[in-house]
C-alpha cells in the first residue's frame, strides 16, 4: 500500500492515518513526520514558495518508497508534498509509515524524510518581510543524514 501525492492543498493527518491503517489491517504501529514552514525571529520569512519537477517528482517518491519497503518490514507508507506558496506554520510535507511493530515504522519514517530531502526534485524559495527572496541552499546535514542509511 503506497500513497504518493504532490499538490498545493493541505493534508489532514487524521484522514491520511485512517486511510493508511484501513489499508494495512495487520498494522500495530503508525509513525509520521510532518514538516512545517518555519519563521523565526533570527530568520523571519513571510512565505515559502515550493517548486517541483512534475513527473520526475512522483517517480522519485515512488523509488524512495520502494527502497523503504525493501529495507524495512513496512506494511504501507504515504508521502504527500505540497507545492506553491505556503505561509509560516503551514504544513509542507507528510510522511506516514505503517508496520506491525514500532521499530520498522519509526525507522522507515526517518529514512523516507531523509531521502525525500536529498532525492526528490523540490526547491524552496524563501520570501522575506522586505519583499526580497532567496532560493534555499541545502543544509550540509541533509546529505549526511541520508548517507547514514
Amino acid at each position, binding site marked *: 500500500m503506497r500513497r504518493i501525492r504532490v499538490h498545493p492543498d493541505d493534508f489532514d493527518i487524521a484522514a491520511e492515518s485512517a486511510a493508511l491503517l484501513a489499508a494495512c489491517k495487520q498494522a500495530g504501529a503508525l509513525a509520521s513526520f510532518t514538516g512545517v514552514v518555519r519563521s523565526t525571529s533570527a530568520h523571519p520569512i513571510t512565505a515559502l514558495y515550493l517548486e517541483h519537477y512534475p513527473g520526475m517528482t512522483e517517480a522519485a517518491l515512488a523509488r524512495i518508497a520502494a527502497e523503504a519497503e525493501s529495507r524495512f518490514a513496512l506494511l504501507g507508507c504515504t508521502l504527500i508534498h505540497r507545492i506553491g506558496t505556503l505561509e509560516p506554520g503551514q504544513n509542507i510535507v507528510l510522511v506516514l509509515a505503517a508496520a506491525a511493530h514500532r521499530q520498522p515504522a519509526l525507522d522507515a519514517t526517518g529514512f523516507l524524510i531523509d531521502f525525500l530531502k536529498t532525492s526528490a526534485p523540490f*526547491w524552496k524559495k524563501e520570501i522575506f518581510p522586505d519583499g526580497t527572496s532567496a532560493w534555499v541552499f541545502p543544509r550540509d546535514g541533509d546529505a549526511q543524514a541520508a548517507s547514514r542509511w
Partner: protein
Amino acid sequence: MPITILYFAWLRERTGTGIEQLVLPQGVSTVADLIVFLRGRDAAHDAAFASPLVRAAVNQVFARPQTPLSPGDEVAFFPPVTGG
C-alpha cells in the same frame, strides 16, 4: 538530434527559460557537452551554468556530466534539491 530542456528554480530564473526544444548539433552527445553548448548561446545561460551547483536529470533520472544523450531525451537542469 532533437531534445527537450527544462530549467527549475534559479536555473529557470537566470536563463529566463522554463522549457525549450532544441536540435543539437553533431558532437553534443553528453550532459557536459550540452552545458558547454548552452553556455555559448547567450550571456544569461553562461552566467546560470557558471555555478558549480548545477545538477541535471535525463528522462527524469538524476544524471552525471558523462551521461549520454539520445534523440527525444528530456534533459532538466536545476540546483541541489531542497524539499521536505
